[in-house]
């Protein structure tokens, strides 16, 4: 999940222009992140014993897989194919935050990550010249992501008795810190690829709700 608009963006670029390498890369990066999320939740869904969390996590896994399909189809509709990427945002995430080893830690890192995803997709939608295919894809995904945040937040609140509210809060704080570091590092690392993004003028930003 990446994408502060680059300072050298061309504001005249058309949404009907052929997909450039950088935009193709970013959409492929989204796709790879969705795939990795799906694989992670799928493995967890397979591991957990029957419970409400297993139920919701299995749905979460299915949604993420569907999101990967949405991006694959979006790229196809834009006349191209996904770039094969071996690394995803989540890999750096786990490296920075450490492996979660209990369900509370898994829910906490998931909540922080899902909020980052929503934030990133919202930033993308706020750009000038977002292609209709991309806007449609993000809109569909965002509806699911809001549901994900809601169920994960509720699951975490239900763990306060078992793990302690203070421990849950500390864990969330730790993962938020890691998230900020990874996001900043990812932006810096892929700066060159983000120049196709076009920030809207401030007054136009304010009119989008």
């Amino acid at each position, binding site marked *: 999940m990446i994408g502060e608009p680059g300072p050298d963006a061309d504001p005249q670029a058309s949404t009907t222009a052929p997909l450039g390498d950088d935009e193709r890369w970013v959409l492929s990066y989204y796709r790879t992140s969705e795939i990795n999320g799906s694989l*992670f939740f799928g*493995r*967890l869904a397979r*591991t*957990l014993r029957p419970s409400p969390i297993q139920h919701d996590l299995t749905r979460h896994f299915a949604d993420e897989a569907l999101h990967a399909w949405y991006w694959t189809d979006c790229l196809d509709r834009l006349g191209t194919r996904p770039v094969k990427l071996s690394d995803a945002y989540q890999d750096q995430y786990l490296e920075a935050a*450490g*492996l979660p*080893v209990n369900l509370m830690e*898994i829910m906490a890192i998931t909540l922080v990550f899902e909020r980052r995803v929503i934030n990133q997709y919202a930033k993308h939608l706020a750009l000038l010249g977002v292609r209709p295919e991309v806007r449609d894809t993000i809109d569909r995904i965002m509806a699911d992501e809001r549901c994900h945040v809601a169920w994960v937040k509720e699951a975490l609140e239900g763990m306060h008795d*078992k793990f302690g509210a203070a421990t849950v809060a500390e864990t969330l704080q730790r993962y938020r810190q890691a998230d900020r570091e990874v996001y900043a590092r990812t932006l810096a690392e892929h700066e060159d690829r983000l120049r196709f993004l076009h920030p809207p003028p401030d007054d136009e930003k304010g009119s989008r709700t």
Partner: protein
Amino acid sequence: MTIPSADQVRLAMATALGVSEKRMPADADLAELVSDSYRLVEMAIELQDDFDVILSQADLNGVTTVGDLVEVIRTRSAQD
């Protein structure tokens, strides 16, 4: 709370990882037994279910061998 024996924990770990218990001597390197880091998460979840304990990220700091993890589970069992 009954504290599981080291053999019980090693058997549970072998089952979770889908490997023979013979590959699980106390000094075996965990990193060589798990194919990727997600597998370690899955095993940790299964062990917590099996022995009704809670592990945290901090518990696994410094854990490198099968024996290290066995001791963490047994210690947690005694506490929880």
